């Protein structure tokens, strides 16, 4: 399966940010070459991104990667120095926020504290000069949509964090916006509630067919909620793709290490044969992996900790490593181990919790292996 993936191992050929004219036509939101700096900091460094109609795209990145700035440019709160933002075929780069028809949920919800939930939700409709009866009807519908039916007359301070979140969401979608922006909306919620809200927002978004951009620094959240994920660093998009692509076939070591846990082994291709390559990773060890990079190419090999198996040597010697368990943690659904290999290298291993299977203990010697198809290769620059 890996061998047949298009352009494997070369990030430039991966189905990236859908550049090109045909994609632009089918895209609802198009961002082209957007730049923005604050003082000496280049917050956005030529961002290009296309979002399809009805899609939920997550912008994932560490703090300072420029994701919030990008959101502000889309919403109109910041003006880019270069580049364009197109929404529904119209250039909105310089359009004031009030005319953009974009719904946004702020990190702190930004509910108007002197208005009830109902009045908060009615606000965008009133600003659009809708008739009283129409407003009444739409507000009731929006309250039902976010399951807040009976709480319309409460003030924000009388609502829990999760309920405030729902009001903010209802207020952002009640006027049928052309685009919905969510700026780390679940950051303040506890884990259980956060997970429930993720699924709820996802259901609502799909039901309404709302084109949505979701900002987060939580990679797990990004994988759960999105149609596609765009990983940002240093004001640029490193990779955009469906969650499995991002997790299993990251374009570079930044994406590999930011999304999930990883073992990265650096080396260069020694031999290539029948869709497999042998990679020398120093200390005399060679790895066999699926790939077709020419000999001499400097590559990184990614093996996710759950793709490693604790194994005895009887199955052969390819991709077999021996070492000692350095650290072992029980995390409920699995065990996490840190292993020091005989050559001094360290690997992360995840083992499932199964009846009758004993987890390796600290200090024990251990052998781990992985299948060539479970390794992912990418070029190192």
């Amino acid at each position, binding site marked *: 399966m890996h061998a047949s993936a298009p352009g494997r191992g070369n990030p430039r050929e991966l189905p990236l940010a859908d550049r090109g004219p045909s994609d632009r036509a089918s895209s609802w939101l198009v961002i082209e070459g957007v730049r923005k700096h604050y003082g000496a900091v280049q917050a956005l460094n030529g961002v290009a991104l296309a979002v399809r109609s009805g899609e939920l795209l997550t912008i994932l990145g560490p703090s300072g990667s420029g994701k919030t700035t990008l959101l502000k440019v889309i*919403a*109109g*709160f910041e003006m880019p120095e270069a580049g364009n933002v197109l929404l529904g075929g119209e250039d909105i780069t310089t359009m*004031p*926020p*009030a*005319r*953009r*028809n*974009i*719904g*946004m949920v*702020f990190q*702190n919800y*930004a509910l*108007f*504290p*002197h*208005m*009830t939930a109902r*009045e908060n939700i009615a*606000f*965008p409709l009133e*600003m*659009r000069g809708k008739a009283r009866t129409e407003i009444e009807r739409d507000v009731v519908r929006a309250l039902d949509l976010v399951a807040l039916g009976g709480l319309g007359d409460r003030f924000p301070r009388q609502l829990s964090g999760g309920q405030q979140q729902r009001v903010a969401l209802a*207020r952002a979608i009640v*006027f049928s916006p052309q685009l919905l922006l969510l700026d780390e909306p679940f950051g303040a919620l506890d884990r259980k509630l956060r997970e429930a809200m993720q699924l709820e927002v996802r259901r609502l978004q799909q039901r309404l067919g709302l084109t949505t951009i979701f900002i987060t620094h939580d990679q797990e959240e990004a994988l759960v909620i999105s149609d596609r994920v765009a990983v940002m660093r240093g004001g640029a998009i490193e990779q955009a793709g469906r969650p499995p692509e991002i997790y299993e076939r990251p374009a570079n070591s930044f994406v590999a290490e930011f999304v999930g846990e990883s073992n990265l082994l650096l080396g260069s291709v020694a031999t290539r044969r029948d869709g497999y390559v042998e990679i020398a990773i120093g200390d005399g060890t060679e790895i066999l992996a699926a790939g077709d990079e020419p000999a001499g190419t400097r590559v990184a090999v990614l093996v996710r900790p759950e793709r490693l198996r604790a194994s005895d040597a009887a199955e052969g010697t390819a991709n077999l490593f021996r070492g000692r368990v350095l650290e072992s943690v029980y995390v409920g659904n699995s065990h996490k181990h840190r292993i020091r290999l005989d050559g001094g290298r360290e690997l992360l291993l995840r083992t499932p919790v199964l009846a009758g299977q004993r987890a390796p203990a600290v200090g024990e010697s251990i052998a781990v292996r992985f299948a060539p198809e479970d390794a992912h290769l990418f070029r190192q620059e």
Partner: protein
Amino acid sequence: MAAVQEIGRPGSRRGARVERRRQALIASLSVPALVLLLVLFAFPVLRLMELSLDAGSLQWYQKALSENLYLQVFWATFRIAAIVTLASFLLSYPVAYLLATTSDAWASLGFVFIVLPLWTSILVRTYAWMVLLGRNGVLNRILIDLGVMDQPIAFLYNEVGVVIGMVHVLMPYMVLPIYSAMKRVDPTLIQAAEGLGAPGWRIFQRIFLPLTAQGIYAGCVLVFILSLGFFITPALLGGGRVVMIAVLIEQQVRETLNWEFAGALATVLLAATLVIYSLTRGLMRQSVEESA
């Protein structure tokens, strides 16, 4: 470990004792101020009230509340206080807004100008206004030289002069509470309103104004109540022709030595102030809760 937990828990007996002791300590710190207020404020006020009752008779209150002359003074006092409050508000709101939205450096410079008058004697400031507003004062000269007027305007010794002088003295008390209310408005609320399609004036009317209403109210109450008891400015800029209640009380004490009547006037003023304060507070609470 267990002891620490017990102290931290308010329900436990030891925790309650520690908490009580802490509160008693804090309360004891306010004793000097309390004593000072009692001796210098509460006692004289009560003494004046006692005098005003004049051995159980209400004749001085009758006089204050029935004779047309005195009712007119009360009316003038409240009217001037209301005008001063309104004028201060209209002038202060934009100033506060400027201070709240400009850079910190400009804001601190602005504050120097706001607070500077408070460090200057009220007497000096009032005389300065007399120089500016007099018949041959700076303002009239400029107006005549520019050809705007051919006769000097009477600014002094009437309500106009009194209001100008009082607004000048009282503006800082309006600017400061409004400024602090504006600073508390979360800027993302303004962005949110903008993003939801509100034009600038609607954001002001529906979001910014209601959210700063508490500050406006505090400033207005402060200025209004200070205005009611104002003495030096109306006495000097009013030149005896604008009689506010404090001026009248001073006359009773100093010129006619009628302490009883002065006490009655002061008590009526105090009562009226308290009634107005409690009424507006009730209204304010309601409007904050209902406003949208």
